[in-house]
């Protein structure tokens, strides 16, 4: 087993608030990668914009820190250009389910082999406390002054309904369990969502560390994660949220598989040389 410290970036200027749940998620991520004997150059962490999305600047790995909401599109492109890379797409709930909502929906359907970790603090952190798509109804913010009026997004249910092949939830307060869940997600061949509850100590006074502790429970062995309707029923629970792998389906072709170009040859695109002679042949065969 590798030492998670190989993923440390000593000169990183940590921009998270002291006490933020994000630190624990980062710790879990490094642990998961190290446990899997990965090296920083094997991994690409792709992120959008937001506090959570700063993750790749705080660890050593290949990274693409792109645009707000677009991490899943970036990540799909990375994986499609080089399926040999381990691709992890990271962002906050606003990033993934709000600005990136359409991409979330369609990435689930596309099933690229990427692990998607969403740091869900039920608020916008970086822009200072506006409602996010997962904010509870009634939450008062500087913008939602009369309280949030929309129903919160249920990302797990949405993913399951759209045909996601791996759907899980974790809580940053439990680093080991989060790391284990992340490992399973990375190992999974296909799109894998892990929604990670994370208290935002600066802007979310409702969903605090204690609140998450009180409102979550660990799934037991009795849950059959291959049972889609049972998974959906669990995803619909909102009194107390189940933690663990709700749904897992192996063997579905990935996006990269369906492109066809890796069927006979798994060489990444950057190592291929285009067959320009074929262009000539095509032109010669024209009228």
């Amino acid at each position: 087993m590798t030492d998670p410290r190989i993923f440390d970036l000593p000169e990183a200027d940590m921009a998270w608030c002291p006490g933020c749940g994000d630190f624990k998620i980062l710790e879990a991520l490094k642990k998961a990668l190290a446990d899997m004997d990965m090296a920083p150059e094997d991994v690409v962490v792709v992120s959008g914009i937001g506090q959570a999305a700063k993750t790749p600047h705080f660890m050593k790995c290949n990274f693409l820190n792109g645009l707000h909401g677009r991490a899943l599109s970036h990540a799909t492109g990375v994986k499609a250009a080089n399926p040999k890379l381990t691709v992890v797409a990271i962002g906050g709930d606003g990033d993934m389910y709000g600005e990136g909502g359409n991409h979330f929906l369609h990435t689930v359907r596309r099933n690229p082999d990427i692990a998607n970790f969403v740091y869900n603090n039920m608020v916008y952190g970086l822009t200072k406390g506006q409602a996010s798509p997962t904010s509870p109804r009634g939450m008062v913010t500087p913008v939602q002054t009369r309280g949030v009026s929309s129903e919160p997004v249920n990302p797990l249910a949405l993913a399951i309904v759209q045909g996601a092949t791996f759907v899980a939830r974790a809580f940053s307060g439990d680093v080991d369990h989060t790391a284990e869940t992340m490992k399973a997600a990375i190992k999974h061949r296909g799109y894998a969502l892990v929604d990670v509850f994370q208290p935002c100590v600066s802007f979310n006074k409702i969903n605090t560390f204690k609140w998450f502790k009180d409102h979550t429970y660990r799934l037991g062995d009795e849950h059959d994660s291959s049972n889609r309707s049972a998974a959906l029923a669990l995803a619909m629970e909102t009194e107390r949220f189940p933690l663990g792998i709700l749904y897992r389906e192996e063997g579905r072709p990935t996006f990269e598989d369906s492109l066809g170009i890796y069927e006979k040859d798994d060489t990444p695109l950057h190592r291929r040389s285009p067959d320009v002679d074929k262009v000539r042949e095509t032109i010669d065969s024209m009228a």
Partner: protein
Amino acid sequence: MASGKDLSVVICGGAGYGVQTVEDILAKVLKRSGYHVFATREYMSRVRGGNNSTEIRISSTPVDGMVDEIDLLVVLSPGVRENIRNRITKNTVIAADRSSVGEEFEKTDGALFDVALGEMAKEAGGAVYANVIAAGLVLGITDASTDQAEEYFRSRFGKKGDKVVDENRSACGKGLELGRDMAEKFPDLAPPEKDDTSSRRVMNGVQAVSLGAIAGGCDFVTAYPMSPATGVLAFAAQNASEFGLAVEQVEDEISAINMAVGASYAGASPMVTTSGGGFSLMYEGFSLAGVAETPLVAHLAQRPGPATGMATRTEQGDLNLAVHAGHGEFPRLVLAPGTIEEAYSLTARAFEIAHRYQVQSIVMTDQYLLNTFRDVDPDDLTAAKPDKCLVTSGPGYRRYEDVPNGVSPRSVPGLGKEIVGCDSHEHDEEGHVFEDFDLRVRMSDKRFRKGELLKEDFVPADIRGPENWTRLVLCWGSTGPIVSEALKDLELSDTALMRIRQIWPVAEDVVAAVERADELIFVEGNHDGQLENLIRSVTGRSAQGHLRNYCGLQFSVEQVRMGLSEILG
């Protein structure tokens, strides 16, 4: 009337009447019979009905532009629209089935030749053959080879069985006879002479852009369908396995460009293909590619705007959109091919430059160019050998190394043992976000040094005219060949034509030519004079005159000829 060198044929019919098939038959059979062919299509945004047309110029020398004059109008269904009817003159011969079109052509100038297309189609095997008969009719007027027509039907329908081939052949044969009759009745409708066109190939704009991209090393295509750019997406999808292309129709243009940026970061050579509306949605991702220095090519196929504008029509209204694409400042390359050959070569060039300088290229076409086909000399389709210009990362590798020419050594994850970073923020050499005002200036300067290279390593403008010209006519993109033909007709001893192929950055040759000219005249397909404004902003020179067209249809040669002679008095 054509001089015997050139016959202009227009075929009209509702969507679903097979105008496109006629186009295809004529292009292939005529070219193989030794004629030069040029064709351009205009169509309504309808899946069924309406009335569309294609103009085919059959010629003894290569032609490359749309004309108003119609020597022969073939009508497949009633309801020919004003834009075609206006072009009928007393020299036009109209071939139509009177039982179907009724009085439609009673009051027009042209001479009607009544052909029982419907009846004959039924005899040939069904109403669907009317278009094949029409194709035969045109072939019959010329000296087209009947063997080539046979060969065409065999190769096109052979898989569907002998019956289909025979029915098509017989329908075409009936048309051929009719055509021969007609040629006798209208002795002025002389077919052009033949040439040796055997080494030439018939290609349309969509094929030229797509094949040029592949020749340039494109291996990744993402798009969301939007006319007129969709053809390139379809070509890529249909030829994906042949050429090893990753192709995806994504959920929207936002995803298209962001996926392309991700792919480029990981070592692909991506292209997005879209129209103005879609490209507007791509601005943010385009800007990301700019700061991240990920090479990519955007094919921007113009149609009239604002917003949805005219979905199936043509315009040159997006020059500003391309030149100013993205927020913030970063260098980019904007190329505008004017011919089929250039659609191929400049698209390949867009990839070459994107990789050489790690910039973003925009290739600007339009509906007219994409839906135009013509016979071309394959030797004129040129492309440099693709090179992604990648390096293997070694110890101490830094993606955004601040090197003198601004082009940092580019590696990708998995090529070498080192880390490769990529960031949308202003970043340090490793790609990490780092808020430092000096660093910001340094990095911005680094990126803009690449912009200087784009000015030096430029695609020259095409300047043609008499040695001692004093007046310069300027145009860009698909209007080029049309203006060229119009100017040839005008035979002006003091006027040259400059077709600007590299729109941005404006290169020295353009500046020098503009400075040398006493008089500048711009011809462009938009309302605002976008090229004219751009040239003024760069050179300070104002135009003495301009000709603009923004009705949704391409200029015709006659329109430009008349417009220019009016301007020149």
